[in-house]
């Protein structure tokens, strides 16, 4: 596999027996029905009974497909049409067989339900892993501050869970929990204690981050980053072997905990999607139906993406819509229903694990139901504008930084980079209470509506009216801010700056890193600041005509927590350009329809503003930065070019393109064919009636052709370079005394997609997107003119958008 992943001309990749998942072990378990490439120099062969297997398959060489035909290389695009046809053939076969015996009937029922079973397994496994991540991340985050004497495995909250020593103002303080200063220098207050705690905090953070990046580097380099851009690309039909493998799953799970606990400005939501997809891919190996079909596997992966968001936010419906809107490429209705099922199973698994001890799936569940006034839409829209601007700027800055990492010397020191950023983060974060706590806790604190029961600094209002004791606690009137709140506002402003800057440098480092939590934190801080500002404005100026009528004195008219929520939504929307799914996720976090309108207003504004400043969301931008072959379904192709402008060779033979390499259906010798194939790098060759007429018969793929020729040369007697290669049906009569013909009709695709040279490119792009093609032939008046591949289209689109067409790396 050395150095060959990016060009087309090696079909003997070492891992063709193991689609997308890493190899170790898999060959031992599943080798009996995985398509194997036989023969010695075809790379790795199944280790169990390779020889006898090969002998048996020799018999039906020309009846059954040659093994290896129909598989894909690493870093290539699958052919959706072919995969779906394959699956339908399988279905038909099972349906026919099921009428013959009870056993086959049982098999067909099992086959029909295996999809549901798989979904159940994915849900259970993802839910369990999410629970593990939540529990351990929580514990390790607290480990930076101290340790529990009752049992080192308890985090701060659980350490004081049964304690009777907690007080109203210091709810987490109990003698069982010891800070590092208490343990090491024996005091809990004062400068020495502070310094010891500070040092320990930084040391732990550095240790966690260093461990994370080392593990990623040593065992599964694919485990770094958020994973969503790559999963989008994979779902659109790309193959990245090992990206969703067992090792990636394990290392991503483990290092995600380390990365989150290290206090870096990153979240676990994006990586959870990757983890869920890894689970799905690993579990797919238990079911032949999904293991052997790349299209079916991608249906399952779409559902897994929904599962990931479902466990990340406790929002099954939002997860399904996220998968539909943001991640998936091919999302049939059957998948909708199944992914909903899987998302629910995962959510319930997680809830039964109950990682936060509050029967909720997320830390920042919102429980208030205060009404809002129509006039408040103005600040909400303002938050939307802020979110949009920040989102667009963040994307630009982050992409610029990532490009620098990709192209300059910076990229050579990934471990050093992580350690440096962690050091900066930890050193800056510790002094400020709101940056010291983890992102989810911060968001939870900001979303919280102040009731009388709260004692945090953000709820430090001056209680004037001490007599309103009969009212339920959630109907507190607006009150003036106290000293604690004032200092909290300062700290929050600093935290906002901190988060805004550091997230740019954090996202894209070589540790698992999600973007949702930092974006939401930025938005939530901004929103809370605005909310408190509005509240104080309304309190001190309740006689302004603006507030008159709905915000009289003593009324509870402004909920700062709601502003934080809206701000978080706006920023997340600005960065990811999610719309419906974002609103639905937030709706599920609150569980009431009353806040949908503010959330929607903010999301819409944020998307419009962000789109005006830069077309792409962060995931699309990263896809483009890496040059993945991804045909964006949302973007309209708006140029008036024709198929003849894009096809290769170009009409009229301009630009020094090599001529179109075609095979004749009869009359070429094996030597000629091999010379043609060897002399070019095309991944497919059209077969024509004759070189003069150029009337199209079909298409043969390079990989299939090479494998078949090799196979014949080895197993069919008398095949030499002078043998004729015959694609026609019925084959022409065998020449007497000549070497035997090589009949290759079986590998010929008789129904290649064709368009005429006058077809507008917008229609061609539409066909490629909707049908998931790899290539398309171009004809004029029935004559073959050229070929358009997905890469040609992407290059053309890049050219049209004045970008470098060579940024498209993969095929």
């Amino acid at each position: 596999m050395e150095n060959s992943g990016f060009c087309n001309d090696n079909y003997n990749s070492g891992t063709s027996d193991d689609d997308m998942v890493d190899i170790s072990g898999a060959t031992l378990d599943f080798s009996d029905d995985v398509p194997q490439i036989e023969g010695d120099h075809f790379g790795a062969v199944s280790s169990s009974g390779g020889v006898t297997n090969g002998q048996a398959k020799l018999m039906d060489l020309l009846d059954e497909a040659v093994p290896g035909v129909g598989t894909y290389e690493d870093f290539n695009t699958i052919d959706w049409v072919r995969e779906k046809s394959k699956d339908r053939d399988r279905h038909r076969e099972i349906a026919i067989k099921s009428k013959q015996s009870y056993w086959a009937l049982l098999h067909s029922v099992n086959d029909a339900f295996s999809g549901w079973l798989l979904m159940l397994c994915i849900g259970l496994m993802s839910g369990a892993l999410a629970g593990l991540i939540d529990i351990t991340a929580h514990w390790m985050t607290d480990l930076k501050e101290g340790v529990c004497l009752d049992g080192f495995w308890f985090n701060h909250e659980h350490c004081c869970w049964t304690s009777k020593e907690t007080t109203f103002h210091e709810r987490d303080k109990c003698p069982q929990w010891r800070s590092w200063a208490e343990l090491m220098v024996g005091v809990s207050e004062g400068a020495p204690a502070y310094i010891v705690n500070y040092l320990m905090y930084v040391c732990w953070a550095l240790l966690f981050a260093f461990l994370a990046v080392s593990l990623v580097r040593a065992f599964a380099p694919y485990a770094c980053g958020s994973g969503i851009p790559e999963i989008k690309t994979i779902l659109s039909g790309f193959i990245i072997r090992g990206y969703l493998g067992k090792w990636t799953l394990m290392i991503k799970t483990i290092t995600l905990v380390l990365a989150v606990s290290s206090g870096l400005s990153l979240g676990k939501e994006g990586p959870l999607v990757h983890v869920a997809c890894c689970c799905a891919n690993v579990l797919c190996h238990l079911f032949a139906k999904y293991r052997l079909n790349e299209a079916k596997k991608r249906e399952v992966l779409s559902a897994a993406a929904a599962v990931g968001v479902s466990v990340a936010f406790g929002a099954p419906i939002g997860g399904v819509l996220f998968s539909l809107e943001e991640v998936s490429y091919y999302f049939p209705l059957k998948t909708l229903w199944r992914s909903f099922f899987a998302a629910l199973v995962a959510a319930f698994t997680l809830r039964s694990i109950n990682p936060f001890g509050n029967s909720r799936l997320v830390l920042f569940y919102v429980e208030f139901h205060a009404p809002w006034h129509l006039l408040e839409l103005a600040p909400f829209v303002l938050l939307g504008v802020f979110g949009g601007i920040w989102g667009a700027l963040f994307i630009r800055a982050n992409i610029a930084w990532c490009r620098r990492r990709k192209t300059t010397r910076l990229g050579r020191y990934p471990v050093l980079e992580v350690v440096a950023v962690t050091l900066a983060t930890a050193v800056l974060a510790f002094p400020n209470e709101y940056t010291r706590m983890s992102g989810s806790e911060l968001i939870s604190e900001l979303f919280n509506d102040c009731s009388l029961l709260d004692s945090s600094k953000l709820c430090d209002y001056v209680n004037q009216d001490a007599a309103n004791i009969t009212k339920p606690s959630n109907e507190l009137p607006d009150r003036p801010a106290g000293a604690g709140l004032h200092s909290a506002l300062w700290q929050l402003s600093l935290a906002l700056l901190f988060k805004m800057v550091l997230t740019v440098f954090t996202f894209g480092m070589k540790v698992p890193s999600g973007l949702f939590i930092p974006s939401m934190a930025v938005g939530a801080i901004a929103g809370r600041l605005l909310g408190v500002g509005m509240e104080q404005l309304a309190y001190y100026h309740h006689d302004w005509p603006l507030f008159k009528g709905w915000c009289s004195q003593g009324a509870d008219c402004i909920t700062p927590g709601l502003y934080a929520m809206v701000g978080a939504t706006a920023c997340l929307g600005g960065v990811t350009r999610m719309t419906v799914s974002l609103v639905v996720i937030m709706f599920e976090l609150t569980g009431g329809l009353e806040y949908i309108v503010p959330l929607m207003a903010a999301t819409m504004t944020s998307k419009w503003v962000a789109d005006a400043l830069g077309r792409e969301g962060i995931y699309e931008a990263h896809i483009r930065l890496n040059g993945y072959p991804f045909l964006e379904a949302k973007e309209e192709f708006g140029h008036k070019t024709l198929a003849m402008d894009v096809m290769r060779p170009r009409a009229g033979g301009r630009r020094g393109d090599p001529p179109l390499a075609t095979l004749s259906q009869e009359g070429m010798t094996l030597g000629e064919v091999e010379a043609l194939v060897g002399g070019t790098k095309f991944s497919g060759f059209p077969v024509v009636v004759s070189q003069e007429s150029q009337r199209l018969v079909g298409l043969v793929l390079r990989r299939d052709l090479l494998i078949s020729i090799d196979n014949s040369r080895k197993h069919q007697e008398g095949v030499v370079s002078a043998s004729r290669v015959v694609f026609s049906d019925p084959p022409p009569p065998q020449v007497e005394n000549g070497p035997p013909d090589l009949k290759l009709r079986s590998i010929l695709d008789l129904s290649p997609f064709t368009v005429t040279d006058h077809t507008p490119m917008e229609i061609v792009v539409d066909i490629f997107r909707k049908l998931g093609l790899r290539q398309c032939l171009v004809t004029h008046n029935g004559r073959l003119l050229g070929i358009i591949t997905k890469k040609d289209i992407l290059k053309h689109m890049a050219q049209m958008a004045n970008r470098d067409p060579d940024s498209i790396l993969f095929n």
Partner: protein
Amino acid sequence: NKNFEDVRCKCICPPYRNISGNIYNRNVSQKDCNCLHIVDPMPVPGHDVEAYCLLCECKYEERSSNTIKVTIIIYLSVVGSLVLYMLFLLLIDPLIRKHQPYTQQLHNEEDAEDIPPQAEDALDRGSTVLERVEGAQQRWKKQVQEQRKTVFDRHKMLS
């Protein structure tokens, strides 16, 4: 013991008149989780109890300390063994491998191309379980190296 530690009823009572806020915490069953049972030295006289209790919020909570314990211990042991394995691969493995020329070749062929992979096949076809595991491990190592080059050196992906 499990039942004793894993349920609690927590009442948070906000400041009321001249009484400061308080937190009451007891492990009782869900049925008894209300202000009257939990707030034991009632800080207010009889006629004020109802009003005081209206302000308090009592929540019944469950947890599974065993789950937490098991999870953390599993996690730590996995991380520990991975770190040990990583150290082994980094420090000790190269020392051992020096004496095995063909593996060494595999290990160092990173930039060479077109090496006939018979050596590897020989590994795969090993007849004993140990050899097979060895072969699988070698393939996996190669794969990780490939990934590392793609991601860390060439910056083709995930940058």
